[in-house]
């Protein structure tokens, strides 16, 4: 008799506990926005779920503590190995993220410290290397200098072809150098969507989105000139 009773209580406890745990998990998950960026637990750690900064973007906070930026809600950080996400104390961080709706669309964001007085030389190297041209666009705000350029690139065999500012060639690659005016903090931004063939209208939309991201970068006020 007692034996029979015990076997009945045990399954009941298990079922109850499962429902409870499942319920807690469900409630916990439901607190997060239902978008790819929050579906990934690694990406989620960088985002502020209560700060939907604009339609389609959440605030991303660097683990170096040195900057925030807008992060597209359909993106997820890659984190299989150290080439995809790596950090060095508070002086360096690089992440690579991929769009969940278009798996060929990537962005790479690299934070580092660069000596301010050499800015033009670093900028020249970056654009020369990426687009074989040193004529980036420049935007100045009160706090940052943004250098950026875009091009349509493709490979002819092993030869990389770069086409800049030519009608009919919608850019599929963007590169930017964003420098804080009050510290040595720098962000290098790379975007590529190289397999896509966008039409003019899609190109303008892409351009708008990327410009939003570039302008969203905010460095902290913490002045550290040791690096």
């Amino acid at each position: 008799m007692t034996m029979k009773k015990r076997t009945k209580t045990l399954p009941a406890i298990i079922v109850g506990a499962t429902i409870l745990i499942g319920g807690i998990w469900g409630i916990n998950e439901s607190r997060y926005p239902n978008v790819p960026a929050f579906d990934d637990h690694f990406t989620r750690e960088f985002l502020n779920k209560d700060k939907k900064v604009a339609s389609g973007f959440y605030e991303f906070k660097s683990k170096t503590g040195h900057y925030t930026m807008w992060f597209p809600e359909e993106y997820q950080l890659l984190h299989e190995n150290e080439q995809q996400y790596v950090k060095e104390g508070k002086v360096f961080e690089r992440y690579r993220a991929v769009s969940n709706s278009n798996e060929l669309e990537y962005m790479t964001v690299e934070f580092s410290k660069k000596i301010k007085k050499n800015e033009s030389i670093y900028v020249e190297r970056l654009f020369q290397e990426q687009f074989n041209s040193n004529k980036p666009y420049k935007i100045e705000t009160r706090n940052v200098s943004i250098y950026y350029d875009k091009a349509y690139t493709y490979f002819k065999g092993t030869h990389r072809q770069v086409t800049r500012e030519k009608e009919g060639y919608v850019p599929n690659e963007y590169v930017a150098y964003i420098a804080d005016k009050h510290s040595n903090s720098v962000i290098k931004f790379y975007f590529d969507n190289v397999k896509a063939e966008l039409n003019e209208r899609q190109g303008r939309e892409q351009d708008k989105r990327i410009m939003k991201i570039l302008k969203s970068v905010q460095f902290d006020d913490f002045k550290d000139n040791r690096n």
Partner: protein
Amino acid sequence: MKKRIKPITAVTAGAAILIGAIWLINESCYPNVPAFDDHFTRKFLNKDKKVEDGFYEFKSKTGQYTMWFPEEYQVLHKNREDYAVNNDSYESWWAVYNEEVEGKTQENYIKTEFLTSNPADESIHVEALFKRRFGLSVPNKIENSQTRIYYQSAYIYFKGTEKHVIVDKKKHIPNTYLAYVADKRSNKILQISFDSSDKYKSGDEES
């Protein structure tokens, strides 16, 4: 009917043997090392120029430099960005050697980037490069009649997502080497890195 089939079969068999033989003779012309087993890698190498034991001469497709290439390595060409060249002004490649070390496969990588750079800015680029990779601004330097070579080695490891660097050779045997080679008579430079840590799974733009 019976008779006609026979010559055709014989011709086919003969042709197959001939083609096979030509292929074999052709293949046997190349040194029997991994670098020549790969048809992509082979195109860069001079099979008649074994420059030293274990090395063959590698000639850049830019036509701007040659270097020694270790015979165990193969140039990667699986993904679009593995190998890139832009006329005579830019080239990047990386090569891999899967080495058996104590029963485990260790991936060794050589990664290079050739570009042009204003010699007046050399110290700035060198400082930025070594600072970024190893956290130190003054690398070792060698000069010969043709080039200036800046180099440094270190042991690099990861704890979770955090990168750590040990520069002191006495504390740990290096697994990463980096060099910046500047031509004395032009604005050409070549950056070469060697890595035997397992951190390079894909190409990246670390500079």
